[in-house]
């Protein structure tokens, strides 16, 4: 990242963008994601103070600072846990989580898995640059097999994780995939994700221009393709088949959206609550149990 300590650098804010100039390298894919989310939130029509963006650690996780919403930049891999806590405690907030491929799928893999399966009512945007950007270019869980980086000088020996597949098979009820350079489509997907009740996951192919030169815009273009004609995003088996058969190709668009699906985790949690008018009386009664 260009300059991580930019407390002083301000830019004109517009929409949901904060006045802090993003510290990303010029040309970083994450700018496109920022623009797309700005647009999607604007279209959603929610007030900035009713939105919170929660992130882990990584270039992509700096996101909260660049948006004029509430924001929490947590610890590496823990964004989804913090976001879940926030959403569970304050169900009326629109909570967006952001992270990178390492943050989401390496150290944060367990929270990823459980957040997807719980169907928490969040929108999670993963900026997949197939590298650890923030730490200057090591192999990430989404790096292709054979990739030579500083940490795998003899080539990556692992099969890459496919984030959309991981989210879909773990139980997310909305799975979409976009690129940072097609901001229009991305904004649409994000808007649909924000409107979805339950876990919406959006994987974004987003180049790291500084530490992963190979995976540039063209590379991601070659790696992705539009959804096949007639794909039914409401069919889980169809979504499964699509991703399984796509192999390393990344279909772009809304891959899956559960229709009339399960209630999100938040609803389930809320359904258990009593809302006593006289809390003290309830407490007295609870104490009496132990008398």
């Amino acid at each position, binding site marked *: 990242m260009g300059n991580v300590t930019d407390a002083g650098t301000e830019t004109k804010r517009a929409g949901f963008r904060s006045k802090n100039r993003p510290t990303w390298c010029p040309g970083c894919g994450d700018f496109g994601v920022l623009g797309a989310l700005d647009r999607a939130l604007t279209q959603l029509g929610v007030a900035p103070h009713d939105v919170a963006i929660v992130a882990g650690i990584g270039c992509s996780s700096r996101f909260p*600072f660049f948006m004029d919403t509430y924001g929490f*930049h947590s610890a590496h891999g823990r964004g989804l846990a913090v976001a879940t*806590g926030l959403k569970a405690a304050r169900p009326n907030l629109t909570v967006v989580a952001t992270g990178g491929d390492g943050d989401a799928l390496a150290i944060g893999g367990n929270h990823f898995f459980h957040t997807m399966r719980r169907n928490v009512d969040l929108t999670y945007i993963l900026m997949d640059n197939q590298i650890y950007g923030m730490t200057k270019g090591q192999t990430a869980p989404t790096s292709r097999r054979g990739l030579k980086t500083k940490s795998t000088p003899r080539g990556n020996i692992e099969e890459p994780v496919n984030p959309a597949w991981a989210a879909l098979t773990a139980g997310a009820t909305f799975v979409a995939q976009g690129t940072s350079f097609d901001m229009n489509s991305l904004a649409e997907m994000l808007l649909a994700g924000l409107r979805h009740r339950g876990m919406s996951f959006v994987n974004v192919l987003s180049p790291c221009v500084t530490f992963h030169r190979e995976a540039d815009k063209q590379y991601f273009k070659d790696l992705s393709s539009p959804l096949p004609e007639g794909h039914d995003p409401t069919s889980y088996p169809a979504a499964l088949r699509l991703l399984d058969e796509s192999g390393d190709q990344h279909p772009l668009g809304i891959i899956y959206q559960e229709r009339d699906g399960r209630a999100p985790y938040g609803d389930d949690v809320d359904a258990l609550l009593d809302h006593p008018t006289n809390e003290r009386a309830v407490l007295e009664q609870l104490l009496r149990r132990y*008398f």
Partner: protein
Amino acid sequence: MEPDRWVHRDPADSAWFDSSAKDATSLRVVVDHHAPSGMGSATFEVSLMDARRSIVIRCEGSAGDGIISLGKVLARAAARAGYHVVTLASFLAEVRGGQSSLQLKIGVGNVLSPGDDPEVLVALNEQGVREVASHVTAAGLVLGPPMNGSTPAMAEGVRVLPIDYDALSTEATGGTRSKNIVAVGVLAALIGLDEEVVRKVVAELFGKRAADAEAANVRACDAGAKAAAASEIGDAFRLPKSDGVGKLLLSGNQAVALGAVAGGVRFYAGYPITPATEIMEEIADLLPRVGGRMLQVEDEIASLGMCIGASYGGVPSMTATSGPGLSLMVELIGLAGISETPLVIVDVQRAGPSTGMPTKDGQADLDLAVYGTHGEVPRVVLAAQTVADCFSQTVAAANLAHEYQVPALLLTSMSLSHSLQTVEVPDLAALKVYQETFYAGPADGEFVRFQPTEDGRPSRRSKPGTPGGIYRTGGLEHNDRGHPSFDPDQRREMVRRRKLRSQALVVASDAAIEPHSLVLGSHRVGVTSWGRAAAIAREVVTELRQEGQDIGYLFPHVVWPLPKATIRRFLASGLRTLVVCEANENQQFANLLRANFATELGRAGIEVVTVNKDDGNPFGPGEIREALRPWLSDGTATTLGEVGPKHPLDSAALPS
């Protein structure tokens, strides 16, 4: 420096008396309703000269005999009748295959330990008599079944009263299953519990199952009472009248859960772990009843992460775990610290390290609680000494967390979490629960999250959802708006901010000293301790003082930051020897004292003597009494000479 003479409280959590009245034969005891736990109030006289203010009872039986129920029913009845009770289960039984065993101490005031050797043994099987009768104290009582074998050698004056539990149970209920309730009847009659109360407790317990079981068991209880009345024991084991104020009977884990709910916690995320699991289980039931949300999640890291998220959302949050879970949480403790996110973490300590002995007791997580995280953040660490503390210190932890916007850690331990003790019914109206004031919106001026302050107190937070209060924060070093900044001047400012916070917490720690936990005076010997060991030490030292021994003590609940002014006064009160008791090997608390009061200890030439134990079982009062013996006067001299010889239990600090 002239030492102070303070009026101090009796170690029973709720009673005051005047220390100058050491030679009085009776005391006016005032149950204090200003206590932080908001307990009720009552005044009564107790005679220090009473032959008996408490009784130690051991219950023994085979695994299926219902020993735990026996203890619970007896304890519950005593509690409701206004007595203080402390129980201890399981530790005794661990290595004695198939045998179940539980000890209770019941008394008026001053009950802090389950006692050492029992005065009364009630054994539902012969094995219990064979193995425990020889431990019964002189002039004690053995209530065993009719024996086939011979009874073992016993202490002087121990009486044996054979009771045919099986027969009495069968007679009353048609089966032997209620023999434990027969024993309840016997014991309740012996110590003089109100019959109606006992019957009611028995009835309630079995009434849940079926009316006929209820009636049958009440009959079994009565049969026991009758057998006791028919015996020649008389009043020897009768307790004096209690204060008559019914008490709650709780385990430490239940008390923590209740404390959390009463203390305003409305979000909980957790993961099961022995011996903390019941906190989560209890909370799972309690919290939703007051609109609070409880989640069981994938691990302890997620637990704390979710609490941070919920607390960022403005909802008071808590998690509970044991050592291994606390270890996993230390990264995020730093995150809570730097982002000034209040939350409560309860650590029910068990014997470590690593998986260690999950069902055994220990107090070796203090270092982790105080030092656990990379870098430096202010935090507060509290420790419960009693089950009553498990309630009141959970409230205190939530208060401190929110007042100072820091992570507050509360340490309890296996021996508290799973033993039942009486707790005065908290006066919820009097309970102080800190209410955080949030930024209210644009009318409230411009919002600056980390407003500089000179007094170390935090600045207001803004609840997400509040117009005009938008801010971002997290784990990076930042400026007053929460925005990342690595500027050296800004950094120094924030380091100083955190330091001032810690200093403010020192003041809070001093303010949290409850009178009953401190005795100053021109004592040559002072005793200090923390957590469960402190309760036992408190009981022992109180007894020793009543025996005329010249001992000061300090048993703080806030163990980090240390109460500086209090400890300085304590150390400057004329001490030559400071005895530090704790259930670990590495002298964690003693080392905190040494590190933070090196100058004071050095200047006064105070010798630090450490009493440690780390075998998985909690301290018994006898062990602490024994450890203190070298520093006691022989009863004729009123002051000791120079500092006494080093005691064998003084294990030199490790590794230095």
